């Protein structure tokens, strides 16, 4: 029964339905407004926090080169593998794959991950080759990441290890020049923002917040060729004479640059897994010793400087010993009446003591001080020692022992620097581990005439009559002085333990190179400085003179057929 005029009253329902719709739409609008405008920054931040990351970019550490541009320490990029144990939990069965790729023990790795399961960052293996890193990346295991780092290589290995030192796995200098110039060498890490996917793999770089600032390189004064020569020669001498240790330093006379500095025992900076403490020490600057007879030329120089002494002036050394304040100074034998030249030639303790005591304390000590004894050489090497030179009031006996190199101590570097004063006609230069291109201002410590006179005396030491004929070099004039020092042990000087020292320069007519060689306790019979240390000098300096193209200054013995003048046989 239908009524055509029936008009149903749905008005109420309609209003209800429509208003529900309106409310829903209003709600959506409000939510949209809330998310897009009012709370937008909050949501943006939350979103970014879930997939944007700021990661550091490690900076390239500066390289170290020798004076001719040969690399001595370089950094090459490598990858370090690390995991987030929390993320890898579900994929522990894939640990074997990682272990296999990296060639490490998988059980170890598993234990490491379980032990650190609450952590978010664990290194698996640091500094792997880039191609191995690529393989790890290809495995695409969630929670495993690579980090770009730089590994330090030392191409010259143990030849330069004491001077260069080394940087640790975090690229921080630990020893040697790596430590001294750490700030200069290390770069500044940068930072970049990246997008990561659900698994945490980096998908894309978004922006570079800060570019990594690479470290600056350093060019050293070391000449790798001379360094190698010195290293080889010292090593074989230490072995031959069964010495405990040894040091050798070569200086450029005109600039004070250190051309070579080597020590025994040495170590390889590339592989520091099995090292005894002490081998790191650069003994040439960190260890002091009593210089013994190598001190005598400076005492004689002090005497010549007063103007009261001349090389031909005589001193009575009979009967071969000399009592000072109740103590006795001895010579090897009675040299009788000898002049200053012979005091150096024969290395007379009595003679040099008498000369020293004829001077004022100030005249004697000032010379030592000006030559840099007891004062830091200023090389800037970490752990450098100052040596010991007592000032203040000294007894006559102390002054006498100082005149022949006891009661004071020096580093091999200090001794080499002092000898460079005699070599550079009386001017001493600051020592430098860095290459120097401009002329350096030196400090005059004795007159040119004195330096030349002392040098001439030291040339006779190397002649066949002297104690150091083994230091001679064919076709070059050499000047030097030996030292055989009784070792000071607790309670006094040891009768049968020695340091063998030789300090010399070449070519003697206009010296360019100075070298000090010191062997600690040779125990194979020979122990005189002239037998043990002098041959090292001859080997190294003859090679260095050739390498540096320094012309011979003594061709008197060259046979006539071997000398051509202007192309004509002379």
């Amino acid at each position, binding site marked *: 029964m239908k009524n055509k005029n029936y008009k149903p009253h749905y008005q109420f329902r309609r209003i209800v339905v429509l208003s529900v719709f309106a409310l829903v739409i209003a709600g959506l609008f409000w939510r949209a407004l809330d998310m897009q405008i009012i709370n937008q920054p909050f949501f943006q931040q939350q979103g970014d926090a879930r997939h944007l990351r700021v990661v550091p970019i490690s900076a390239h550490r500066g390289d170290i080169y020798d004076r001719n541009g040969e690399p001595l320490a*370089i950094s090459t990029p490598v990858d370090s593998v690390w995991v987030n144990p929390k993320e890898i939990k579900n994929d522990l069965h894939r640990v074997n794959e990682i272990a296999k790729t990296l060639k490490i023990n998988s059980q170890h790795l598993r234990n490491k991950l379980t032990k650190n399961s609450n952590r978010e960052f664990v290194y698996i293996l640091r500094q792997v080759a880039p191609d191995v890193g690529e393989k790890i990346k290809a495995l695409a295991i969630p929670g495993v990441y690579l980090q770009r780092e730089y590994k330090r290589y030392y*191409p010259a290995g143990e030849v330069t290890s004491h001077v260069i030192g080394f940087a640790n796995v975090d690229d921080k200098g630990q020893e040697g020049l790596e430590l001294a110039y750490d700030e200069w060498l290390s770069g500044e890490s940068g930072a970049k923002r990246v997008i990561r996917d659900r698994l945490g793999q980096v998908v894309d770089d978004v922006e570079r917040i800060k570019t990594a600032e690479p470290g600056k390189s350093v060019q050293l004064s070391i000449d790798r060729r001379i360094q190698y020569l010195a290293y080889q020669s010292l090593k074989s001498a230490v072995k031959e004479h069964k010495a405990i240790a040894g040091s050798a330093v070569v200086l450029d006379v005109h600039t004070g640059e250190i051309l070579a500095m080597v020590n025994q025992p040495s170590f390889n900076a590339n592989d520091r897994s099995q090292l005894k403490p002490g081998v790191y020490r650069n003994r040439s600057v960190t260890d002091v010793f009593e210089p013994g007879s190598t001190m005598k030329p400076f005492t004689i120089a002090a005497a010549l400087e007063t103007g009261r002494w001349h090389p031909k002036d005589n001193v009575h050394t009979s009967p071969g010993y000399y009592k000072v304040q109740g103590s006795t100074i001895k010579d090897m034998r009675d040299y009788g009446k000898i002049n200053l030249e012979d005091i150096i030639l024969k290395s007379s303790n009595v003679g040099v003591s008498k000369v020293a005591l004829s001077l004022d304390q100030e005249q004697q000590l000032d010379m030592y001080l000006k030559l840099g004894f007891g004062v830091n050489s200023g090389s800037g090497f970490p752990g450098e020692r100052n040596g010991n030179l007592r000032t203040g009031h000294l007894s006559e006996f102390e002054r006498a022992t100082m005149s022949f190199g006891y009661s004071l101590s020096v580093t091999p570097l200090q001794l080499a620097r002092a000898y460079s004063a005699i070599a550079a006609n009386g001017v001493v230069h600051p020592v430098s581990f860095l290459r120097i291109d401009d002329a350096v201002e030196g400090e005059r410590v004795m007159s040119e005439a004195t330096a030349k006179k002392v040098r001439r005396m030291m040339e006779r030491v190397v002649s066949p009559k002297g104690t150091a004929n083994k230091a001679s070099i064919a076709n070059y004039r050499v000047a030097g002085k030996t030292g055989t020092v009784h070792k000071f042990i607790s309670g006094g000087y040891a009768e049968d333990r020695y340091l063998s020292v030789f300090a010399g320069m070449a070519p003697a007519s206009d010296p360019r190179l100075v070298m000090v060689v010191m062997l600690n306790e040779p125990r194979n019979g020979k122990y005189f400085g002239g037998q043990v240390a002098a041959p090292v000098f001859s080997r190294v300096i003859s090679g260095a003179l050739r390498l540096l193209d320094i012309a011979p200054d003594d061709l008197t013995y060259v046979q006539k057929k071997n000398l051509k003048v202007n192309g004509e046989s002379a």
Partner: protein
Amino acid sequence: MGSAVGVIYSKHQTRKMFVSLQKLHKQIDELNIEWGQLQLEQSAWSSHGRIEKIARNKLQMTLPRANEILYIKQ
């Protein structure tokens, strides 16, 4: 409308350039790796010990003795 297109265009350009910047950075990285390895390789081949050994043993070279040296004076 015009400015909207302009924004899109410039954004596109930025992205494109950023991608090429990334590529170049990657290239720098790769070249650096290679450079480091070549330097190491070179210093390994040219190490003094190796050269000395070859010169002495393989090429039978020796240092000239003093009487074998000819001096030429200008």
